[in-house]
Protein backbone atom coordinates (compact mmCIF):
# COMPACT_ATOMS: atom_id res chain seq x y z
CA UNK A 1 0.00 0.00 0.00
CA UNK A 2 2.82 2.32 0.87
CA UNK A 3 4.56 1.43 -2.38
CA UNK A 4 1.48 2.39 -4.44
CA UNK A 5 1.19 5.75 -2.70
CA UNK A 6 4.87 6.46 -3.34
CA UNK A 7 4.49 5.68 -7.03
CA UNK A 8 1.54 8.02 -7.37
CA UNK A 9 3.51 10.75 -5.73
CA UNK A 10 6.32 10.35 -8.22
CA UNK A 11 3.90 10.46 -11.13
CA UNK A 12 2.32 13.59 -9.70
CA UNK A 13 5.68 15.28 -9.34
CA UNK A 14 6.63 14.34 -12.86
CA UNK A 15 3.43 15.73 -14.29
CA UNK A 16 3.86 18.94 -12.35
CA UNK A 17 7.47 19.32 -13.47
CA UNK A 18 6.67 18.76 -17.12
CA UNK A 19 3.78 21.19 -16.95
CA UNK A 20 5.92 23.89 -15.33
CA UNK A 21 8.71 23.49 -17.87
CA UNK A 22 6.27 23.64 -20.74
CA UNK A 23 4.66 26.78 -19.40
CA UNK A 24 8.02 28.37 -18.68
CA UNK A 25 9.12 27.79 -22.27
CA UNK A 26 6.07 29.59 -23.59
CA UNK A 27 6.34 32.47 -21.15
CA UNK A 28 10.00 32.82 -22.09
CA UNK A 29 9.00 32.85 -25.75
CA UNK A 30 6.61 35.74 -25.01
CA UNK A 31 9.10 37.62 -22.87
CA UNK A 32 11.88 37.26 -25.46
CA UNK A 33 9.57 38.67 -28.10
CA UNK A 34 8.57 41.52 -25.79
CA UNK A 35 12.23 42.32 -25.12
CA UNK A 36 12.69 43.21 -28.80
CA UNK A 37 9.79 45.65 -28.75
CA UNK A 38 8.53 48.84 -27.19
CA UNK A 39 6.81 46.63 -24.60
CA UNK A 40 10.04 45.31 -23.08
CA UNK A 41 9.40 44.28 -19.47
CA UNK A 42 13.07 44.30 -18.58
CA UNK A 43 13.29 40.65 -17.61
CA UNK A 44 13.08 37.25 -19.28
CA UNK A 45 12.73 34.95 -16.28
CA UNK A 46 10.03 32.63 -17.61
CA UNK A 47 7.61 33.65 -14.85
CA UNK A 48 4.19 35.13 -15.47
CA UNK A 49 3.87 38.37 -13.57
CA UNK A 50 1.86 41.55 -13.77
CA UNK A 51 4.41 43.28 -16.04
CA UNK A 52 4.41 40.45 -18.58
CA UNK A 53 0.62 40.27 -18.57
CA UNK A 54 0.21 44.04 -19.05
CA UNK A 55 2.88 44.19 -21.74
CA UNK A 56 1.53 41.37 -23.88
CA UNK A 57 -2.04 42.66 -23.56
CA UNK A 58 -0.88 46.18 -24.57
CA UNK A 59 1.04 44.74 -27.51
CA UNK A 60 -1.94 42.75 -28.80
CA UNK A 61 -4.11 45.82 -28.27
CA UNK A 62 -1.78 48.00 -30.36
CA UNK A 63 -1.51 45.60 -33.28
CA UNK A 64 -5.24 44.82 -33.20
CA UNK A 65 -5.15 41.12 -32.30
CA UNK A 66 -8.39 40.60 -30.38
CA UNK A 67 -8.11 36.93 -29.35
CA UNK A 68 -7.46 35.89 -26.62
CA UNK A 69 -9.48 38.79 -25.28
CA UNK A 70 -7.58 39.27 -22.01
CA UNK A 71 -4.40 37.27 -22.06
CA UNK A 72 -3.61 35.26 -18.93
CA UNK A 73 -0.88 32.76 -18.11
CA UNK A 74 -3.05 29.88 -19.38
CA UNK A 75 -2.99 31.45 -22.86
CA UNK A 76 0.81 31.40 -23.10
CA UNK A 77 0.92 28.48 -25.58
CA UNK A 78 -1.57 30.08 -27.94
CA UNK A 79 0.09 33.52 -27.70
CA UNK A 80 3.52 32.05 -28.31
CA UNK A 81 2.23 30.35 -31.48
CA UNK A 82 0.99 33.73 -32.74
CA UNK A 83 4.32 35.41 -31.98
CA UNK A 84 6.25 32.66 -33.77
CA UNK A 85 3.86 32.59 -36.73
CA UNK A 86 4.70 33.21 -40.36
CA UNK A 87 4.29 36.98 -40.12
CA UNK A 88 6.69 37.21 -37.17
CA UNK A 89 8.94 39.80 -38.86
CA UNK A 90 6.04 42.08 -39.84
CA UNK A 91 4.56 41.75 -36.35
CA UNK A 92 7.91 42.60 -34.77
CA UNK A 93 8.35 45.66 -37.01
CA UNK A 94 4.90 46.90 -36.09
CA UNK A 95 5.70 46.99 -32.38
CA UNK A 96 9.28 48.26 -32.44
CA UNK A 97 8.02 51.65 -31.31
CA UNK A 98 4.98 52.94 -29.51
CA UNK A 99 3.02 55.26 -31.76
CA UNK A 100 0.94 57.98 -30.20
CA UNK A 101 -1.71 59.16 -32.68
CA UNK A 102 -2.01 62.89 -33.27
CA UNK A 103 -5.28 64.65 -32.68
CA UNK A 104 -4.18 68.23 -32.96
CA UNK A 105 -7.18 69.37 -35.01
CA UNK A 106 -7.22 71.45 -38.16
CA UNK A 107 -6.71 74.81 -36.44
CA UNK A 108 -4.36 74.42 -33.49
Amino acid sequence: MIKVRFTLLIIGTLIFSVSTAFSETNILCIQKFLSKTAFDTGSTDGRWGEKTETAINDLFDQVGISEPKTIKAKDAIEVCKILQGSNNKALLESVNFKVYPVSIGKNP
Partner: protein
Amino acid sequence: MDGLLAVPPIGDDNLLKQRKALVASKALKINPLFALHPNFKTFSKMLANEEASIIHATSFPYTGRSHFEGQNVLQGGLLNPFSSKTGWLGRAMGIAKITGKAMSLQAPLIIKGATDYDNFYPEHLRNARLPSAEVLKLIQDTHEGSIARAIDKLRRSSKSMRGRRGSARDPLSLASEAGRSLREVDGPKVAVITIPQFDDHAEIGSDTGHHPELFTLIDNAFDNLRNNLQEQWANTIVLTMTEFGRTVKENGSAGTDHGYGSVGLLAGGLIKRSSVIANWPGLSTGELYEKRDLYATIDYRSVCAACIEAAFGLDHDVIAEAVFQDKNIPRAYTHIFG
Protein backbone atom coordinates in the same frame (compact mmCIF):
# COMPACT_ATOMS: atom_id res chain seq x y z
CA MET B 1 18.23 71.11 -29.39
CA ASP B 2 16.25 70.97 -26.16
CA GLY B 3 13.66 68.37 -27.11
CA LEU B 4 11.72 68.77 -23.87
CA LEU B 5 11.18 72.46 -24.60
CA ALA B 6 10.28 71.82 -28.24
CA VAL B 7 7.89 68.91 -27.57
CA PRO B 8 7.10 68.86 -23.83
CA PRO B 9 5.64 65.62 -22.47
CA ILE B 10 2.88 67.41 -20.59
CA GLY B 11 1.23 64.12 -19.63
CA ASP B 12 4.26 63.05 -17.62
CA ASP B 13 3.74 64.21 -14.03
CA ASN B 14 7.48 64.44 -13.51
CA LEU B 15 7.98 67.14 -16.15
CA LEU B 16 7.05 70.04 -13.90
CA LYS B 17 8.77 68.41 -10.92
CA GLN B 18 12.05 68.31 -12.84
CA ARG B 19 11.68 71.57 -14.77
CA LYS B 20 10.33 74.47 -12.83
CA ALA B 21 10.35 77.15 -15.51
CA LEU B 22 11.42 75.80 -18.88
CA VAL B 23 8.02 74.70 -20.16
CA ALA B 24 6.00 76.88 -22.56
CA SER B 25 2.87 78.18 -20.85
CA LYS B 26 0.70 77.80 -23.94
CA ALA B 27 2.04 74.66 -25.58
CA LEU B 28 -0.14 73.20 -28.33
CA LYS B 29 -1.59 69.93 -27.07
CA ILE B 30 -0.99 67.10 -29.52
CA ASN B 31 -2.30 64.15 -27.52
CA PRO B 32 -2.63 63.26 -23.81
CA LEU B 33 1.13 62.84 -23.42
CA PHE B 34 2.76 65.37 -25.75
CA ALA B 35 2.45 69.04 -26.69
CA LEU B 36 4.29 71.31 -29.12
CA HIS B 37 5.99 74.65 -28.45
CA PRO B 38 3.67 77.37 -29.83
CA ASN B 39 6.42 78.81 -32.03
CA PHE B 40 6.08 75.78 -34.31
CA LYS B 41 3.06 77.29 -36.02
CA THR B 42 3.67 75.94 -39.53
CA PHE B 43 4.80 72.57 -38.23
CA SER B 44 1.65 72.21 -36.10
CA LYS B 45 -0.47 72.77 -39.20
CA MET B 46 1.58 70.16 -41.02
CA LEU B 47 0.80 67.77 -38.15
CA ALA B 48 -2.88 68.57 -38.49
CA ASN B 49 -2.68 67.98 -42.25
CA GLU B 50 -1.12 64.52 -41.83
CA GLU B 51 2.21 65.58 -43.35
CA ALA B 52 4.46 65.67 -40.27
CA SER B 53 5.55 63.41 -37.42
CA ILE B 54 7.59 63.65 -34.25
CA ILE B 55 10.13 61.17 -32.93
CA HIS B 56 10.74 61.69 -29.21
CA ALA B 57 13.28 60.37 -26.72
CA THR B 58 15.66 59.70 -29.55
CA SER B 59 19.31 60.22 -30.35
CA PHE B 60 22.17 58.95 -32.42
CA PRO B 61 24.02 56.32 -30.37
CA TYR B 62 26.34 58.75 -28.64
CA THR B 63 26.25 59.22 -24.88
CA GLY B 64 29.25 61.49 -24.47
CA ARG B 65 28.65 65.19 -24.27
CA SER B 66 31.18 66.59 -26.74
CA HIS B 67 29.77 68.67 -29.60
CA PHE B 68 32.66 67.62 -31.84
CA GLU B 69 32.22 63.91 -31.24
CA GLY B 70 28.41 64.11 -31.27
CA GLN B 71 28.28 65.99 -34.55
CA ASN B 72 30.72 63.53 -36.06
CA VAL B 73 28.57 60.55 -35.04
CA LEU B 74 25.47 62.37 -36.32
CA GLN B 75 27.09 62.93 -39.70
CA GLY B 76 29.28 59.85 -40.02
CA GLY B 77 26.48 57.55 -38.88
CA LEU B 78 28.84 55.03 -37.28
CA LEU B 79 29.10 54.07 -33.63
CA ASN B 80 32.52 55.62 -33.03
CA PRO B 81 33.29 59.29 -33.70
CA PHE B 82 35.96 60.10 -36.29
CA SER B 83 35.87 56.53 -37.61
CA SER B 84 34.68 57.44 -41.10
CA LYS B 85 35.69 59.95 -43.74
CA THR B 86 32.28 59.73 -45.38
CA GLY B 87 28.77 60.51 -44.09
CA TRP B 88 25.72 58.25 -43.90
CA LEU B 89 23.73 60.40 -46.31
CA GLY B 90 26.59 60.51 -48.81
CA ARG B 91 27.02 56.73 -48.66
CA ALA B 92 23.28 56.27 -49.27
CA MET B 93 23.37 58.77 -52.16
CA GLY B 94 26.32 56.91 -53.64
CA ILE B 95 24.47 53.58 -53.57
CA ALA B 96 21.27 55.10 -54.97
CA LYS B 97 23.22 57.29 -57.46
CA ILE B 98 21.47 60.43 -56.26
CA THR B 99 22.70 64.02 -56.59
CA GLY B 100 22.84 66.52 -53.74
CA LYS B 101 23.63 70.05 -52.70
CA ALA B 102 25.18 71.29 -49.46
CA MET B 103 23.95 74.77 -48.53
CA SER B 104 27.29 75.69 -46.98
CA LEU B 105 30.77 76.86 -47.95
CA GLN B 106 32.32 73.49 -47.23
CA ALA B 107 30.55 70.22 -47.89
CA PRO B 108 29.74 68.75 -44.47
CA LEU B 109 30.84 65.22 -43.59
CA ILE B 110 27.26 63.93 -43.80
CA ILE B 111 27.12 64.32 -47.59
CA LYS B 112 30.64 63.05 -48.32
CA GLY B 113 30.74 59.67 -49.99
CA ALA B 114 28.21 60.68 -52.62
CA THR B 115 29.58 60.66 -56.14
CA ASP B 116 27.71 63.74 -57.36
CA TYR B 117 27.12 66.76 -55.16
CA ASP B 118 28.07 70.42 -55.00
CA ASN B 119 27.71 73.46 -52.76
CA PHE B 120 25.65 76.61 -52.69
CA TYR B 121 26.84 79.44 -50.49
CA PRO B 122 26.50 82.88 -52.08
CA GLU B 123 29.49 85.19 -52.15
CA HIS B 124 29.21 88.92 -52.65
CA LEU B 125 32.53 90.03 -54.10
CA ARG B 126 32.62 93.67 -55.13
CA ASN B 127 32.52 94.14 -58.91
CA ALA B 128 32.52 90.37 -59.38
CA ARG B 129 30.38 88.91 -62.13
CA LEU B 130 29.38 85.37 -62.86
CA PRO B 131 31.19 84.04 -65.92
CA SER B 132 28.82 83.67 -68.82
CA ALA B 133 27.72 80.20 -69.85
CA GLU B 134 29.31 80.81 -73.26
CA VAL B 135 32.75 81.51 -71.75
CA LEU B 136 32.51 78.43 -69.56
CA LYS B 137 31.46 76.35 -72.56
CA LEU B 138 34.56 77.53 -74.45
CA ILE B 139 36.79 76.60 -71.50
CA GLN B 140 35.04 73.25 -71.18
CA ASP B 141 35.64 72.47 -74.86
CA THR B 142 39.39 72.86 -74.39
CA HIS B 143 39.43 70.19 -71.67
CA GLU B 144 38.36 66.61 -71.40
CA GLY B 145 37.64 63.97 -68.77
CA SER B 146 37.00 64.94 -65.15
CA ILE B 147 38.06 68.57 -65.66
CA ALA B 148 35.57 68.99 -68.49
CA ARG B 149 32.85 67.43 -66.32
CA ALA B 150 33.71 69.80 -63.45
CA ILE B 151 33.49 72.84 -65.74
CA ASP B 152 30.21 71.54 -67.13
CA LYS B 153 28.84 71.32 -63.60
CA LEU B 154 30.07 74.85 -62.91
CA ARG B 155 28.43 76.06 -66.10
CA ARG B 156 25.10 74.51 -65.10
CA SER B 157 25.36 75.91 -61.54
CA SER B 158 26.21 79.33 -62.95
CA LYS B 159 23.13 79.18 -65.16
CA SER B 160 20.86 78.21 -62.26
CA MET B 161 22.25 80.99 -60.05
CA ARG B 162 21.57 83.79 -62.50
CA GLY B 163 18.90 86.21 -61.35
CA ARG B 164 19.43 85.27 -57.69
CA ARG B 165 21.84 88.00 -56.75
CA GLY B 166 19.79 88.75 -53.65
CA SER B 167 20.57 85.33 -52.19
CA ALA B 168 21.83 85.46 -48.64
CA ARG B 169 23.53 82.95 -46.38
CA ASP B 170 21.03 82.90 -43.55
CA PRO B 171 19.25 79.55 -43.02
CA LEU B 172 15.90 80.80 -44.28
CA SER B 173 17.34 82.10 -47.56
CA LEU B 174 19.27 78.86 -47.93
CA ALA B 175 16.08 76.89 -47.26
CA SER B 176 14.31 78.82 -50.02
CA GLU B 177 17.21 78.25 -52.40
CA ALA B 178 17.30 74.57 -51.48
CA GLY B 179 13.56 74.28 -52.22
CA ARG B 180 14.00 75.97 -55.61
CA SER B 181 16.98 73.77 -56.54
CA LEU B 182 15.29 70.56 -55.41
CA ARG B 183 12.20 71.18 -57.51
CA GLU B 184 14.19 71.56 -60.75
CA VAL B 185 13.96 68.51 -62.97
CA ASP B 186 17.73 68.11 -63.33
CA GLY B 187 18.45 69.64 -59.91
CA PRO B 188 19.82 67.91 -56.80
CA LYS B 189 17.62 65.46 -54.91
CA VAL B 190 19.12 66.04 -51.46
CA ALA B 191 19.91 69.26 -49.58
CA VAL B 192 21.56 69.81 -46.20
CA ILE B 193 21.14 73.02 -44.15
CA THR B 194 22.80 73.79 -40.81
CA ILE B 195 21.10 75.90 -38.13
CA PRO B 196 23.65 76.54 -35.37
CA GLN B 197 23.64 78.06 -31.87
CA PHE B 198 21.36 75.74 -29.90
CA ASP B 199 23.94 75.49 -27.12
CA ASP B 200 21.96 77.57 -24.62
CA HIS B 201 23.71 77.02 -21.29
CA ALA B 202 22.13 80.24 -20.00
CA GLU B 203 18.80 82.03 -20.52
CA ILE B 204 17.40 79.44 -22.89
CA GLY B 205 13.89 80.94 -22.69
CA SER B 206 10.51 79.25 -22.42
CA ASP B 207 7.69 81.27 -24.04
CA THR B 208 10.15 83.75 -25.51
CA GLY B 209 13.95 83.86 -25.61
CA HIS B 210 16.74 82.33 -27.62
CA HIS B 211 15.62 78.71 -27.96
CA PRO B 212 12.01 79.71 -28.83
CA GLU B 213 13.45 82.06 -31.49
CA LEU B 214 15.37 79.13 -32.92
CA PHE B 215 12.11 77.12 -32.97
CA THR B 216 10.59 79.90 -35.07
CA LEU B 217 13.61 79.72 -37.36
CA ILE B 218 13.19 75.95 -37.83
CA ASP B 219 9.46 76.43 -38.36
CA ASN B 220 10.06 79.08 -41.03
CA ALA B 221 12.69 76.89 -42.70
CA PHE B 222 10.02 74.14 -43.02
CA ASP B 223 7.67 76.76 -44.46
CA ASN B 224 10.23 78.08 -46.97
CA LEU B 225 11.13 74.59 -48.08
CA ARG B 226 7.50 73.68 -48.64
CA ASN B 227 6.66 76.93 -50.46
CA ASN B 228 9.64 76.67 -52.79
CA LEU B 229 9.41 72.95 -53.40
CA GLN B 230 5.85 73.55 -54.62
CA GLU B 231 4.41 70.34 -56.12
CA GLN B 232 7.63 68.45 -55.29
CA TRP B 233 6.73 68.76 -51.59
CA ALA B 234 4.55 65.70 -52.18
CA ASN B 235 7.69 63.65 -52.93
CA THR B 236 9.81 65.06 -50.13
CA ILE B 237 10.81 64.21 -46.59
CA VAL B 238 12.52 66.80 -44.36
CA LEU B 239 14.07 65.69 -41.08
CA THR B 240 15.84 67.58 -38.32
CA MET B 241 18.87 66.21 -36.53
CA THR B 242 20.74 67.26 -33.43
CA GLU B 243 23.88 65.76 -31.95
CA PHE B 244 22.33 65.43 -28.48
CA GLY B 245 19.59 66.79 -26.24
CA ARG B 246 19.84 68.90 -23.11
CA THR B 247 19.66 68.09 -19.42
CA VAL B 248 16.16 67.56 -18.05
CA LYS B 249 16.61 70.01 -15.18
CA GLU B 250 17.48 73.64 -15.82
CA ASN B 251 20.85 74.79 -14.47
CA GLY B 252 21.51 77.77 -12.22
CA SER B 253 21.70 80.11 -15.21
CA ALA B 254 18.20 79.34 -16.50
CA GLY B 255 19.71 77.25 -19.26
CA THR B 256 20.30 73.56 -19.87
CA ASP B 257 23.53 71.64 -20.37
CA HIS B 258 24.61 68.90 -22.76
CA GLY B 259 22.36 65.85 -22.48
CA TYR B 260 21.38 62.71 -24.37
CA GLY B 261 17.83 62.13 -25.69
CA SER B 262 16.09 64.78 -27.74
CA VAL B 263 13.47 65.06 -30.44
CA GLY B 264 13.35 64.77 -34.23
CA LEU B 265 10.86 66.61 -36.43
CA LEU B 266 9.81 65.12 -39.75
CA ALA B 267 7.69 66.75 -42.44
CA GLY B 268 6.90 66.25 -46.08
CA GLY B 269 4.40 64.79 -48.49
CA LEU B 270 5.89 61.32 -48.15
CA ILE B 271 4.32 61.13 -44.68
CA LYS B 272 0.76 59.88 -44.93
CA ARG B 273 -0.24 59.80 -41.27
CA SER B 274 0.92 62.16 -38.53
CA SER B 275 1.98 60.64 -35.24
CA VAL B 276 4.30 60.97 -32.28
CA ILE B 277 6.57 57.96 -32.18
CA ALA B 278 8.28 57.25 -28.87
CA ASN B 279 9.10 54.56 -26.38
CA TRP B 280 8.63 57.04 -23.57
CA PRO B 281 11.25 56.30 -20.89
CA GLY B 282 9.80 58.57 -18.17
CA LEU B 283 11.20 61.59 -16.37
CA SER B 284 11.56 60.50 -12.76
CA THR B 285 15.17 60.79 -11.64
CA GLY B 286 15.59 57.01 -11.64
CA GLU B 287 14.41 56.86 -15.25
CA LEU B 288 16.93 59.41 -16.54
CA TYR B 289 20.23 58.59 -18.18
CA GLU B 290 22.87 59.08 -15.49
CA LYS B 291 20.07 60.64 -13.40
CA ARG B 292 20.15 63.82 -15.51
CA ASP B 293 19.30 63.24 -19.20
CA LEU B 294 16.25 62.09 -21.10
CA TYR B 295 16.97 58.49 -22.09
CA ALA B 296 17.10 57.89 -25.83
CA THR B 297 14.99 54.79 -26.47
CA ILE B 298 14.88 55.14 -30.26
CA ASP B 299 18.08 55.00 -32.29
CA TYR B 300 17.74 57.98 -34.63
CA ARG B 301 19.69 56.04 -37.26
CA SER B 302 16.56 53.90 -37.66
CA VAL B 303 14.61 57.09 -38.46
CA CYS B 304 17.27 58.18 -40.98
CA ALA B 305 17.20 54.68 -42.48
CA ALA B 306 13.41 54.88 -42.87
CA CYS B 307 13.74 58.25 -44.63
CA ILE B 308 16.35 56.83 -47.02
CA GLU B 309 14.09 53.87 -47.69
CA ALA B 310 11.15 56.18 -48.44
CA ALA B 311 13.02 58.75 -50.51
CA PHE B 312 15.71 56.69 -52.27
CA GLY B 313 13.88 53.38 -52.51
CA LEU B 314 16.74 51.38 -51.00
CA ASP B 315 16.07 48.17 -49.07
CA HIS B 316 16.30 48.46 -45.27
CA ASP B 317 18.85 45.65 -44.97
CA VAL B 318 21.09 47.35 -47.55
CA ILE B 319 20.80 50.67 -45.69
CA ALA B 320 21.56 49.03 -42.35
CA GLU B 321 24.63 47.15 -43.58
CA ALA B 322 26.11 49.42 -46.28
CA VAL B 323 25.14 52.86 -44.97
CA PHE B 324 25.20 52.51 -41.17
CA GLN B 325 27.31 49.33 -41.06
CA ASP B 326 25.02 47.90 -38.41
CA LYS B 327 22.57 45.18 -39.46
CA ASN B 328 20.71 45.41 -36.13
CA ILE B 329 19.16 48.82 -36.75
CA PRO B 330 15.38 48.38 -36.32
CA ARG B 331 13.18 49.14 -39.31
CA ALA B 332 11.06 52.20 -38.46
CA TYR B 333 9.61 52.63 -41.96
CA THR B 334 6.18 51.21 -41.16
CA HIS B 335 5.77 53.58 -38.22
CA ILE B 336 6.68 56.74 -40.12
CA PHE B 337 5.51 56.05 -43.65
CA GLY B 338 3.13 53.10 -43.27
